[in-house]
């Protein structure tokens, strides 16, 4: 069964460093999303992406965040200068054009900023 994959599973970085989180969505999906979950809190929407551009972004998704689909398979989230409060689980999701546009989630990347 097709699935969304994410790498790395755990990333540790120093405050102020740049990180890139990678996702491989399900191959025939057209809509891509990033969500984050600070430990013990709810899952929050960051950004949606369709047709090589951002469809919607939340207040959290400020200038230090960017997304890119550099080739036909990867979908990346870049955090330019990480802060302590960026420590969270980051989930990628993708959706096709059928089945209620159900979003399929990847296993997440745990980001720890020291």
């Amino acid at each position, binding site marked *: 069964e097709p699935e969304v994959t994410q790498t790395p599973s755990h990333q540790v970085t120093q405050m102020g460093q740049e990180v890139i989180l990678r996702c491989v969505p399900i191959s025939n999906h057209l809509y891509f999303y990033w969500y984050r979950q600070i430990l013990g809190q709810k899952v929050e*929407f960051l950004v949606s992406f369709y047709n090589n551009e951002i469809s919607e972004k939340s207040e959290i998704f400020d200038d230090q965040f960017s997304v890119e689909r550099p080739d036909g398979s990867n979908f990346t989230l870049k955090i330019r200068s990480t802060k302590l409060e960026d420590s969270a689980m980051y989930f990628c999701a993708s959706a096709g054009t059928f089945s*209620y546009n159900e979003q399929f989630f990847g296993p997440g990347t745990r980001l720890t900023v020291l």
Partner: protein
Amino acid sequence: AQTVTQSQPEMSVQEAETVTLSCTYDTSESNYYLFWYKQPPSRQMILVIRQEAYKQQNATENRFSVNFQKAAKSFSLKISDSQLGDTAMYFCAFRDTGTASKLTFGTGTRLQVTL
């Protein structure tokens, strides 16, 4: 903006018993989708069940069923014959019908299934 509220931070149920998790939401939309996601300790987000607001019939998936009350904006999840593997965080989520629309999640209910 849509909001989703889960008023039960934690619940416990004995194996083989039935438990109901509550969720309410607020929206001005007339059509939308509602979901329950399960998040086990691995933190993977797993879709449990979904409901389309224009369908009056409550969705059912094996031991999982919902009680969807559109007028009350209520969407509860019933788990029958609870199993130890049901132990997880459960998140209620809302999405409008736009094709690229985001999911809006509640704060979650931690369910513990005991022997």
